[in-house]
């Protein structure tokens, strides 16, 4: 193709050299016309390929997001069952001690089972009873236990309560049409359970509510009990430590290199190294963190402190590069003007150059937060891939982060974790979109055009 273009072009050129009009030719189509037609064709082809590649990427992204939304939307609601509960003294605290230790060891399962039997009083065989019991989640027992511990005066009273349904029942009610029995085995719901659930629906003892547990709970092995708050707080702490370390160190490095350092082989070497560090695979920083922070400095394993410090190493080169670019964009006239007014170099840098570069620096910092938020692999090595039911309270507590939580849930065999995983991805994507929008807004709002 290119060769032919060359030949056509040469023919045109030769005619021009001979002082002849290249567009007028003694026969048929002139070389110039051919040349231009070819060029137009290639232009069209190029545009077409460009369009195809954009359409393909839009398709991939669209199907990914649709898939995640389709899997995850249902995790934001929960199915609850309205069960009569008698906080019977015989079961909870037969000796009337009112001692929390006794109350916490009591068999709360029994309270729920009695309530269910009260709703379905017909005599049934043992196996069928167990199918009935399986409708309510284990989380319901913990909920009752907590209620009684908080308010021991409940013992001996009775009432009706909304308790969470078991994970498979939850998924079944949310995703099945409930019109026929087709497909109920997919949710591990038996025919008898199906008719029991229908009866509960008819009696208005079944409802869907907003899934608060998902946003206020820690990790759990029961899908209906698992929440993202623990990993979300872990992510916040990690980012806090990361930025508290990387921002001042990175900005100070960039300011010094850009405004004060002499240009010699040493600063050149440092500059080359910083640029290369930005491209080092993140798992290597995890190894570094393991050997330095945990093994040498003895910081607590699995903690957000170590996680944040590792991520600080990871994003510092990015911050240095962004800051240097922002500083370079500040025109020299600003520095000269400040010097002329009698400012010393430190004042010039801190009061003028740095301030003017701040919007650019902030954009860089916000984008590096987004990067740190999505990292998983360095955290594997420092023990942040762990099962934790508690919400971290300080930066030395063990914790996980949102992407790690996603990774952990994908490894669980239970069906219910599919929707939890997708919902956690939705939350993570939402946070990332907000952060990127913030970066764009800061750039728009504060950027100074010279």
């Amino acid at each position, binding site marked *: 193709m290119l060769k032919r273009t060359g030949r056509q072009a040469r023919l045109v050129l030769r005619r021009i050299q001979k002082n002849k009009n290249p567009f007028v030719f003694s026969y048929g189509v002139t070389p110039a016309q051919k040349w231009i037609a070819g060029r137009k064709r290639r232009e069209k082809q190029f545009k077409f390929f460009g369009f195809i590649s954009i359409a393909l990427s839009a398709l991939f992204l669209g199907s990914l997001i649709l898939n995640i939304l389709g899997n995850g939307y249902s995790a934001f609601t929960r199915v609850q069952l309205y069960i009569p509960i008698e906080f019977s003294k015989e079961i909870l605290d037969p000796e009337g001690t009112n001692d929390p*230790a006794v109350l*916490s*060891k009591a068999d709360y399962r029994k309270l729920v089972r009695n309530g269910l039997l009260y709703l379905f009083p017909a005599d049934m065989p043992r196996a069928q009873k167990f199918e009935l019991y399986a409708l309510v989640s284990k989380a319901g027992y913990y909920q009752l*236990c907590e209620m009684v511990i908080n308010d021991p005066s409940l013992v001996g009273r009775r009432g009706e309560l909304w308790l969470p349904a078991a994970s498979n029942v939850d998924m079944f009610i949310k995703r099945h049409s409930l019109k026929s029995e087709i497909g109920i*085995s*997919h949710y*591990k719901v038996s025919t008898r359970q199906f008719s029991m659930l229908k009866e509960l629906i008819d009696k208005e003892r079944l409802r869907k509510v907003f899934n608060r547990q998902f946003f206020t709970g820690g990790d*759990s*092995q*029961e899908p209906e009990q698992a929440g993202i708050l623990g990993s979300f707080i872990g992510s916040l702490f990690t980012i806090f*430590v990361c930025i*508290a*370390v990387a*921002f*001042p*160190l990175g900005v*100070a490095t960039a300011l010094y290199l*850009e*405004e*004060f350092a*002499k240009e010699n082989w040493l600063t050149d070497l440092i500059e080359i190294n910083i640029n290369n560090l930005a491209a080092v695979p993140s798992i290597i920083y995890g190894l570094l963190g393991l050997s330095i922070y945990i093994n040498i*400095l*003895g*910081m*607590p*394993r*699995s903690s957000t*402190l170590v996680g944040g*410090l590792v991520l600080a190493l990871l994003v510092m080169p990015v911050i240095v590069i962004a800051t240097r670019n922002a500083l370079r964009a500040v025109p*020299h006239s600003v*520095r000269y003007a400040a*010097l*002329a007014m*009698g*400012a*010393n*170099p430190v*004042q*010039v840098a*801190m*009061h003028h150059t*740095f*301030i003017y570069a*701040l919007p650019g620096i902030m954009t860089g910092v916000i984008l590096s937060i987004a990067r740190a938020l999505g990292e998983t692999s360095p955290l594997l090595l420092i*023990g942040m*891939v*762990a*099962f*934790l*039911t*508690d919400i971290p309270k300080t930066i*030395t507590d*063990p914790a996980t982060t949102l992407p790690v939580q996603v990774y*952990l849930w*994908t*490894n*669980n*065999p*239970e*069906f219910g974790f599919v929707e939890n995983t997708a919902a956690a991805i939705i939350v993570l994507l939402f946070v990332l979109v907000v952060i990127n929008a913030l970066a764009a807004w800061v750039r728009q709002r504060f950027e100074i055009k010279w």
Partner: protein
Amino acid sequence: MKFTPVSPPNTGPSINRPPVSGSFLMLSVTALAVFFMPGIAHARDKIHIVGSSTVYPFATTVAEEFGNTTDFASPIVESSGTGGGLKLFCSGVGDDFPDIANASRAIKDSERGQCEKNGVKDVTEIKIGYDGIVLANAKKSFQFDLTKEQIFNALAKKVVKDGALVANPYKNWNEIDPSLPAEKIEVYGPPTTSGTRDAFVELVMEKACVGLAEFKAAFPDDDARKKECHLIREDGHYIEAGENDNLIVQKLRSNEHALGIFGYSFLEQNADAVHGAKISGVAPAYAAIADGSYSISRPLFIYVKNAHIGSVPGLAEFAEEFVSEKAAGDEGYLAVKGLISLPKAELVEMEKRVAALSSAAKSN
């Protein structure tokens, strides 16, 4: 970029001093303080567990139950793989080292040596149950009934054909045995880093192969022969599908000609879509794995560091919970999660072992 001051430096306080530089300095100070903080002393109130990803779902379930029903905090459970977990476990005694290691195989002598070298003298081995390994395919298609020899012939790198040792020539199942379907051999399974793969090659490949006369002739040394028997073909008929068993199950849902190798609990959770191949006529089911008639199963262990009992709160109680009837019994909550429970006598034996541990702690 360098500047030399053109007037004497202004040392007095500037009038319009922007507030940023002040907070910036403060930030730097905090950052440096965090950065150079010396080793932070931390007393531990939580049990720290590391190890096998196969035991992980069981250990976490016990951990959660333990945290919910006792006054102790929920233990931290890390999924690091059996080898990685035991390495950490054996690195020493003290708050910085894990209290329990989960393992999907028994501890090796070399690992025991490592432990002793680092002062971890007394370790209690507790068997918590069994895990079956299944070969499964989509329910829509043929249920396989295989012998270990047939599996070996389908997956090994080298097989015996017409009395000679050759690179695996089998492409379809019916070439191995006419009773098997005329379908391409296509098996998704775990990669070499996985404990499930280790167990699979030991329980199936090795059993079918070490006794073969041709292998004996070619590799008279026992260890070399075992190694050779463990090799799985790399010509596209065995596909390594990563550590995530859910991915393998998904593949089987979409590709009805393929088989997958994974843990029994995943078969149970996906029983609507896949069924397990019978091994020598025995289908993988809870009872068959528990009584040993289904032959591809392996024991799971936890290892407890004796020296930590008494110093880490709740450690003995946690071990008690793990082997209690309520957890590890055949109607316990771990059985619901897919753990094959120990025979009654063995469970009682384990309970005794743990009781001895905690009473030793109390007498100290």
